[in-house]
């Protein structure tokens, strides 16, 4: 874990320090709101997550880039009985989903001048590495898979300095059905809304 943290920190510091013209670098605090089949497993909002985005402006109103993020969903369920096909099981459950999307993205911006609020819409595509875990009693059941995923988004860049912007993004994450399934789960796709709030820097003149 510490190695991962150091690598990510180096990535951000390096990207920021060596930023070139028209390059956006940003970090976000990511919240997650499970929907559909994800909500059936965990319906509790996640306030634990972060993201890194690096993008290059290929036109004044269009950036192409990539992002890495991490959302942790978890929920404690006490006194729960699961009905099985030929029985039942009861006990305290702790459920987890760790979602790690690695996505490329394109964003279209509105707003002409520096110092303005710049709304945008975007589309992300890439892979999601999802670690699903169920703890019940002394057992830990894990199901880890790579998924193809899409994430349309919209948001705002709000200027707070010469090069610095506060960012707010709403992103609907969808990871397609893939790999093995935990127990009798009929659908291994994942979906959640992400609200990402952060800070970014745009360096260089396009």
């Amino acid at each position, binding site marked *: *874990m510490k190695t991962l943290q150091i690598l990510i*920190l180096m990535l*951000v*510091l390096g990207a*920021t*320090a060596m*930023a*070139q*013209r028209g390059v956006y*670098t*940003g*970090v976000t*605090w990511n919240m997650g709101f499970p929907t559909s089949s994800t909500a059936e497993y965990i319906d509790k909002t996640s306030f*634990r*997550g*972060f993201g*890194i985005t690096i993008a290059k*402006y290929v036109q*004044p109103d269009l950036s192409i880039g990539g992002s890495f993020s991490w959302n*942790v969903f*978890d929920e*404690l369920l006490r006194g729960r*009985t*699961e009905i099985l096909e*030929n*029985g*039942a*099981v*009861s*006990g*305290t459950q*702790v459920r*987890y989903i*760790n979602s790690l999307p690695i996505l490329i993205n394109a964003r279209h911006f509105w*707003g*002409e001048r*520096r110092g*303005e609020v710049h709304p945008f819409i975007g589309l992300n595509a890439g892979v999601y590495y999802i670690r699903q875990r*169920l703890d*019940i*009693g*002394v*057992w*830990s*059941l*894990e199901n880890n898979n790579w998924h193809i995923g899409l994430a349309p988004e919209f948001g705002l860049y709000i200027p707070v*300095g*010469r*090069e*610095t912007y506060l960012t707010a993004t709403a992103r609907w994450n969808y990871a397609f059905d893939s790999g093995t399934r935990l*127990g009798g789960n009929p659908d291994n796709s994942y979906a959640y809304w992400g609200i990402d709030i*952060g*800070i*970014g*820097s*745009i*360096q*260089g*003149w*396009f």
Partner: protein
Amino acid sequence: MRFPRERRGLTRGGVVGATLLLSALTFVACYTDYGLTYDDYDVVVTLYDKNTDFGAFKTFYLPDSVFLVGDTTKKVSNEFDDLILSVVANNFESRGYQRITDTLASPPPDFVVVTAKSTSTTVFFSGGWYGGYYPWYPWGPGYGWYPWYPVGTVNSYSQGSVVVDLIDPARTDTVNKLIGSVWAGGVNGLLGDATSNTRERIYNSVNQMFNQSPYLGSNR
């Protein structure tokens, strides 16, 4: 959108961002410590044969011993045997089944209830059966119960299990020396100290076996 003049080097935004990221990385952890207590680790599993008409049974026989299974070389306390037997008997009786204590009774009981216990640092599993047969009574090592999902990892805590089986004599296979179990309840939990309320946990868990088995009950 127009961008500010090019300026190389770490920006103020970058510093703030990196600080934010550091905070985020500290904040994010894969798994949460919920501060679970002993009874949070108690799991009750019940399995049954869907082709069995439990309402057709009327009488049962319950031996007055809780058998030791799994690692039989280990000393296991008998402190809770009476509790296990009484809770099991009360639950069957409250569901309309009549307990028979005479082993020579005629006609013989409709089903036999067997209780077993085990302590172990690993969970013992018998493999993928159900609606099948246990080895011929009394059971030896290898007997056990299993959760409904394939097991991923098992933590190495000292554990205790209580298993209750409802045996249908009509399904006895005398050729292969197997007997049929049409309902099984299992409790698995951590072995604790006096503060872990072992007696209360056993009482609640064995009752839970029956609470989550609403199909048990005599119609006769």
